């Protein structure tokens, strides 16, 4: 494998420039490898102590030095799932509205607002979630959910406004702008000719949208979703404020839980015991692997999809 396309005649400055850019690019790989090695090395103590059961155990007891990652992993996955379930359909609809259905001026204004949402620091979302959204949840949304679905175990439990569900909803609001912006740009890149041929055939707006526009940009849309997914998996401060931070797995989404990132944010500063520290780093290692696997799987899936569906973007 060659680092760059070689051309027979390279003059001096060109060579230096290429070398420099190659070094910079390789630095990224070196960083990833270094982070991986560092995490692996520092988490060795925990993995040696607990073995594979570290991933399966729900226990998290800093006093007795008994640590398991299951509750944090579960919390991370479930909040991300809730966030994706809410954010993806919503983003699609917003993006469609902005790209297809509204006046360009409105699109510009709303689009700018959404981009501004993306620029809000996560700590602000966390504070807002704790002081504004959680009371709103406990007074309006949670009683309504319990009344509407009285038999569902996921809506049982105390109506405190904080917990896994609230964290998921806050996450959804946070990743929404990312996904929306990318999808809107994708829709705008669908050639007018293609859409107009659809309309020319007598299709309705809905038919053009879901058979042509969405289909054409499908791979990029899925890519945008994975961008949001990556962010949701690792989000720390906002989740820490509203998730309730308990190391238990319960069926109810109203109960408190914890995610990998929130556990790290909570306990890292005061972890003096080497095993506690190592277990926290091991949690970080797990998150690293999960994110990595998700990204690789996403790439593979996208390639697969591109083959079977085609699509222009």
């Amino acid at each position, binding site marked *: 494998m060659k680092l760059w396309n070689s051309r027979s005649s390279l003059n001096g400055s060109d060579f230096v420039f290429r070398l420099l850019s190659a070094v910079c690019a390789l630095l990224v790989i070196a960083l990833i490898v270094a982070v991986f090695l560092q995490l692996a090395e520092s988490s060795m103590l925990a993995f040696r102590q607990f073995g594979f059961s570290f991933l399966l155990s729900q226990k998290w007891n*800093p006093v007795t030095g008994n640590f398991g990652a299951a509750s944090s992993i579960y919390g991370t996955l479930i909040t991300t799932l809730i966030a994706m379930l809410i954010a993806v359909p919503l983003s699609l609809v917003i993006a469609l509205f902005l790209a297809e259905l509204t006046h360009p001026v409105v699109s510009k204004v709303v689009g700018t607002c959404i981009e501004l949402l993306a620029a809000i620091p996560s700590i602000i979302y966390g504070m807002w979630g704790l002081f504004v959204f959680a*009371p709103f949840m406990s007074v309006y949304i949670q009683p309504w959910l319990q009344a509407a679905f009285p038999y569902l175990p996921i809506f049982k439990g105390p109506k405190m406004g904080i917990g896994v569900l609230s964290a998921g909803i806050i996450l959804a609001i946070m990743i929404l702008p990312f996904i929306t912006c990318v999808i809107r740009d994708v829709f705008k890149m669908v050639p007018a000719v293609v859409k107009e041929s659809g309309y020319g055939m007598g299709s309705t707006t809905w038919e053009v949208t879901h058979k042509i526009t969405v289909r054409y940009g499908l791979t990029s849309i899925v890519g945008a979703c994975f961008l949001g997914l990556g962010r949701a998996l690792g989000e720390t401060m906002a989740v820490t404020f509203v998730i309730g931070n*308990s190391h238990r797995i319960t069926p109810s989404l109203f109960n408190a839980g914890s995610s990998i990132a929130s556990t790290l944010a*909570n*306990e890292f500063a*005061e*972890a003096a015991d080497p095993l506690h520290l190592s277990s926290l780093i091991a949690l970080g290692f797990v998150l690293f692997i999960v994110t990595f696997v998700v990204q690789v799987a996403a790439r593979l899936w996208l390639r697969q999809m591109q083959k079977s569906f085609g699509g222009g973007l």
Partner: protein
Amino acid sequence: MKKVLGTIAMVSMMTAGLGIISQPACAKEDLSKVNVNGAGASFPYPLYSKWAYKFNELTGMKLNYQSIGSGGGIAQIKAKTVDFGASDAPLKHEDLEQNGLIQFPMIMGGVVPVVNFQAAGLKEAGSLKLSNELLADIFLGKVAMWNDEKIKSLNPSIDLPALEITVVHRSDGSGTTWIFTNFLMKVSEEWKEKVGTGSAVSWPVGIGSKGNEGVANYVKRVDGSIGYVEYAYAVQNKLTYVTLKNQAGNYVNPSIESFQAAAANADWENSPGYYVVLTDQPGENSWPITGASFIIVHKEQANKELVQAMLTFFDWCYRNGQTMATELDYVPIPSNVVEMVEKTWSENIVVGGKSVWPKK
């Protein structure tokens, strides 16, 4: 070796010659060239920064204190990346010896259980009495309703509602949690067995919230909740605190006086390395959940000018910083303990084998 000692002596003579050292401790002197770095506990951070600001106005000394948490502070001082570390939980004597460190209490505070019964209309602070065992049972999840017979029998005058108890605890590792769980461990065998003491523990029940302000906020909002916060937060947020029974059998209210009573009655003299945990102390008026925050420094110091400036600062805090401390709802260290601490300095802190305190 002789040559090295000679050099050190010469250096110290030179610094003495610069007129930095020859003045009494409390007078204004010029320490503007000195930069002291500290890191650790977040509980005393507001006070340390206020002290540092005032001391800087007087002497020009710059103090940079990073509130990164007690665990972080201990790690940093062991690694010698800072000049002093600060921790809410004292280090064990052996741990200090191993690392060539000494610690001393700098400031105290109290931890206060706070409750919220909007439904029962119970607003007046201190009107709810709890025994120590009962408090432990509530945090263990064994007593789950406010109208439990055990609570009722202690509080016959209050019409307690049939309301679920929601326990609120800290989610982040914290010295406050350490003090609180240490108290519960001392008063409840079951707590000792099942949970234990730590800056983060495996809570049997309840929801976790980040920081004192987070716990205060949850308790304020959730009807029927009980949590624990530092005294200052209970006062500032006007939370309904609980009256607790102390070792002498009296029900006491949390106050600067009852915290100080706990500190005065503690046996500092016979505790190597000042390893005193002020929970569940004897005394008629002692508040049972009191704690001290500690400063940790190395015994062997390299820079005489710096260590003397640092000790001058601590000395000034002990003697002149008391009003500032009480203004912020902290509890100053009693003067008999201060004398003991300064004696420890003169016996232990050395530069090149020579004591640096008191300054001559």
